């Protein structure tokens, strides 16, 4: 199928993804992956010659946003840019077709033997690990891995050590930089999606829940909390939108900034969504905790706060006084 991006709108991809993800309820990872691959979700940005749709990242943004909104636990934000970065390789083809899945380990938590931690990956076949030289792809079976269930017993984090293992392939500096910018932007929009879903549910609940004869949404304190949630979500979404339009040397910086904003502002939005549900918010059954866990796992994978410090350090370095 030939795709002309000028004839398509990114929002349409979001709507299509919503229908696909809604139909995944109750399916296992393999069936879910097959359904998403059939819908072309993994190959949005991969070249047409490689079986993808050859579209810009802007078309993947609404897709991962919907994934966040609908609390999809499958690593879609990872697999879309990986299918593009690894296109032309056997692993790239498998990811694009949904035959294999992948998790990503960033270097922020590398220490001692550990290369870092992925936000998920228990089911993954491949691990893409960030090093000082760029990204390297490993067969997960060849690595020492340790699941960590403290933050999320349902979808645990995965600590990974590549010690003694040989990578299947490595991305060069340019490929690594492009993949890194892409995945950070998709993660940012995924977090924005988590927040959008939480805000929508919270607003609906507060308009339906009546106390003292009026909906809770009539109370100014409650309305202002929801307004602030909307404000932060709008700002973070606009920032991600702006960052995906950046090109050249600004792209990596903008991606870092957008992801840092999504994480820092998203935490407030998700925590407030739980708070505004009262006791219900604290229950397992309500399920808002899943969005908060996804957020916190991603934050941990990136080294909480490290991204924001890097954004600050980059700005400071670029300010250097020229005498």
């Amino acid at each position, binding site marked *: 199928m030939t795709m002309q991006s000028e004839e398509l709108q990114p929002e349409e991809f979001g709507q299509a993804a919503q229908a696909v993800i809604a139909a995944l309820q109750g399916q296992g990872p393999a069936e879910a992956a097959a359904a998403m691959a059939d819908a072309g979700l993994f190959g949005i940005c991969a070249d047409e010659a490689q079986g993808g749709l050859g579209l810009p990242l802007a078309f993947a943004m609404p897709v991962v946003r919907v994934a966040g909104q609908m609390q999809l636990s499958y690593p879609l934000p990872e697999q879309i840019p990986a299918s593009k970065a690894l296109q032309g390789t056997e692993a790239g083809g498998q990811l694009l077709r949904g035959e294999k899945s992948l998790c990503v380990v960033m270097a922020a938590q590398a220490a001692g033997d550990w290369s870092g931690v992925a936000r998920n990956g228990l089911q993954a076949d491949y691990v893409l690990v960030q090093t000082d030289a760029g990204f390297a792809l490993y067969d997960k079976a060849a690595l020492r891995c340790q699941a960590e269930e403290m933050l999320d017993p349902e979808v645990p984090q995965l600590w990974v050590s590549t010690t003694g293992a040989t990578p299947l392939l490595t991305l060069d500096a340019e490929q690594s930089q492009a993949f890194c910018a892409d995945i950070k932007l998709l993660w940012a929009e995924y977090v924005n999606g988590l927040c959008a879903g939480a805000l929508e549910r919270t607003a609906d609940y507060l*308009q339906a829940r009546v106390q003292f004869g009026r909906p809770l*949404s009539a109370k100014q304190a409650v309305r202002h909390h929801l307004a602030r949630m*909307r*404000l932060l979500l709008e*700002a973070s979404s606009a920032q991600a939108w702006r960052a995906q339009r950046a090109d050249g040397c600004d792209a990596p910086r903008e991606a870092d900034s957008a992801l840092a904003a999504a994480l*820092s502002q998203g935490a407030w939005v998700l925590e407030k969504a739980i708070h505004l549900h009262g006791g219900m918010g604290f229950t397992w059954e309500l399920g808002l905790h899943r969005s908060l866990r996804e957020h916190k796992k991603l934050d941990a994978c990136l080294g909480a706060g490290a991204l924001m*410090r*890097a954004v*600050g350090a980059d700005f*400071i370095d670029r300010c250097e006084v020229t005498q």
Partner: protein
Amino acid sequence: MKQEENFARPDAASGPGAYRQYAREWLHSHLPAHMRADSVDYRTPSLDECRDWEARMYQVGLAGMTWPTAYGGHGLSLREHLAVNKEVGALAMPESVSSIGKELAGPIIMAVGTEAQKQAFLPAILEMREYWCQGFSEPEAGSDLARLRTKATPDGDDWLIQGQKIWTSGAAKAHYCLLLTRTGTVADKHRGLLMFAVPMDTPGIRVVPIRSIDNKQSFAEVFFDQVRVPDSARLGAADEGWSAAIRVLSIERATNRMYRAWRFECELRQLVRAYQSEPALRGRLQEPGLRQAVGQVVSQIDGLKGLVERSVEQLQAGEPIGARGSLTKLYWSECHQAFASLALSMVADINPGHSALAQRAKAHFTQAYLFSRAESIYAGTTEVQLDVIAQRIQQLTKD
């Protein structure tokens, strides 16, 4: 200073990129060091200096960009306007002394004024011959303009105006007041509101400056005691001027002072460079906590840029902005206030023995912190903006 002829102005087809480059080169070449807030040579510019600077910017095509050529504008799109604003923001130049005229009075006159009014007022605003002030707020009517009391009574071919305005920025220097009055009583609420262009030298007008916490007198109370104006001073029919003001305000909240995000970035750069200029302070920039705080500000600036650029794209696509201007206004004001607090705490470390650049930053950010207290008050308080977002964007029910 370079000659104007060394700078070739792009034509309309050149696109935003060419305008941005042109603006960058012209502004950097022509803004005197003593008018740059981040320069050690800075001194507060006089009103005449500000006027001359803005007039020159207009003459070379860097102001009045989106106004129609029939009224002195350059007939370009918001995209070129934004491109130039990015460079206006990136340079620490003085704030416009005619923002009310350019961003409020002018667009309203364009919307509801007669052809004679447009020809009389609009070119004079762009050429910096006439300044305007905005007579909306009253002691009993701030954000709730339905309660305003200033009365306009017909008297032959004239109108007699009686009442009082407050928080009127630039009233002492203004040539005209964009005045909102009512023809009936407060019980009429939003009905019967009438707008006028009132010359400030009309007998019966008294301006009483108000001293603000930054030790300036930039706004004032304005009293109207049986002020007689001709019917030709009326802007639109009853309710028409107000409707136009609402429309303009909704767009302006999203697009006015479009340079703010880039000026915010310019201020952050000034603060960091002041620290870098001083060996005793330079090491602090390596502290993780300070880097994280700077990162937070940078990230907020990028978010603000996103909100502004998205608004421009939506307007260019013909989409209404509506209440969305409240998002930009609220986000900017709160982020900038937080930054001003951070900046004040940082410049507290600067002592009289430190560099001239550091001293300049201390003076600038002390003043900026004090002025920033107004940012969550003017143009609709934080609480008003939150109400707008809750009601009109999030569309929350009340019953």
